[in-house]
């Protein structure tokens, strides 16, 4: 980036940081700039990567199949007028059909079978077996916690309570672990301000 571009980037960085003090005109400016720029960028990317190659260029090349999605796309725009809204449902129905159809095998394979296949791996010998048993107990107790058809009372309640302990340790671990990633991002931004914009730190 050139000098001016670096300064603009630094100024916008500070506008966002000012949000930590409180909402203020600088943040509000950055927010509105960001919304407009992001929406525009997405439109341009969709035009360049989807509409141009998949519709315009294909139709220009004599392939008329893309008229089908084009027609559905125009139906979606029908939402702008009350009268055309029912027609837009056909396109929505197609789109929802696609993604609910994809979701079923995808979740079945990645979330259910993959997890279960991992859960039934035979225990390793020695110390590792203790960990494997703990993972199994944790798994069963958390599954019990998520049982909706039975109230959390009696034996069911007791097992569910163990499940909560496992959940809390998992949440604590996730929280602690995520701190690391977020701190890295902050370090990078402060490094940018101190080194690239203000030159307080020597260049790498």
């Amino acid at each position: 980036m050139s000098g001016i571009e670096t300064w603009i980037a630094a100024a916008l960085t500070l506008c966002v940081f000012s949000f930590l003090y409180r909402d203020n005109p600088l943040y509000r400016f950055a927010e509105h700039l960001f919304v407009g720029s992001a929406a525009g960028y997405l439109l341009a990317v969709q035009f360049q990567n989807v509409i141009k190659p998949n519709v315009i260029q294909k139709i220009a090349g004599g392939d008329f199949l893309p008229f089908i999605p084009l027609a559905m796309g125009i139906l979606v725009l029908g939402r702008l007028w009350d009268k055309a809204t029912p027609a837009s449902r056909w396109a929505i129905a197609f789109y929802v059909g696609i993604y609910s159809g994809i979701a079923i095998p995808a979740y079945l394979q990645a979330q259910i079978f993959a997890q279960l296949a991992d859960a039934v791996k035979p225990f390793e010998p020695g110390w590792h077996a203790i960990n494997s048993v703990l993972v199994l107990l944790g798994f069963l107790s958390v599954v019990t916690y998520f049982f909706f058809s039975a109230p959390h009372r009696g034996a069911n309640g007791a097992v569910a309570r163990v499940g909560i302990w496992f959940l809390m340790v998992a949440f604590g671990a996730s929280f602690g672990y995520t701190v690391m990633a977020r701190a890295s991002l902050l370090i990078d931004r402060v490094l940018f301000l101190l080194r690239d914009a203000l030159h307080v730190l020597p260049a790498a």
Partner: protein
Amino acid sequence: MAAKRPSGWAVRLMALDRRVIFVLIFLATALPLLFPVNLPITASPRVKAAFDTVDRLPAGTYVLMSLDYEPDIKAELQPMSIAVLRHCFRKGLKPIVLTLYPAAPGLIERALAIASEAEGKKRNEDFVFLGYKSGSQSVILGLGESIRTMFPRDFWGTPLDDIPMMKGKNSYADFPLVINLSGSAIADYYIRIAATRYQRPMVLGATAVMATDYYPYLSSKQILGLIGGMKGAAEYERLMDITGDARRGMDAQSLIHVTIALLVILGNVALFFTGGLKPGGSGGAREGTGR
């Protein structure tokens, strides 16, 4: 409420303005950057495994590198790219670099410039940058068949056939190692396609949050090493004996973590002295986990 009168300092501490916390965090970030003490860094087994995998390759080996991240998470992955590229260059390996994100080429161009300058290497003699291609998963599949179909020209517009070092290199089979440094599900695609379907040895770099999700692939040997986040990059820099942005940030990383941990402890001490720890006591956020 407890029988004893809540201590004044404890009550004030509990009502601490969050902006005070923000200032503390900012100082914990900026001070170590300005005045580094260089706390020791030891490499974890997973990063060591990644390093060793690259280190074992004989000079002249071609490595396929896919660097897939956009500027907003560059903090975690850009230092990693630079460190791994420098390692390849130092060992005389030949990285062929590409990206599947439209906003990434600028970052990668910079990483290549820094790494090649530091190790004295030249474009199209020691490395090739293919640039960006849209279609993520289909590109990863396509690389198994023909790199030239996916990337007819390099990033700067030179046809691949005019680059002597690309001669005879056209699919996964020509690369004894695939390296993917990724901030998204692209990592899954490479594991599924390059590492599993095409049986390529693979090293993965990911953000810290993603990293734990990929441990199972290490035990199944689908990936041979895993570099997680800025910390992983710092460990890699340590193994290389170089100092990059990741290592520069590690003191700050430690101090931020310690500050947050101390804040949690302080909050609980204050809560204790206001009697809030008694059952039904006041203070703290309302909680409910849907039980």
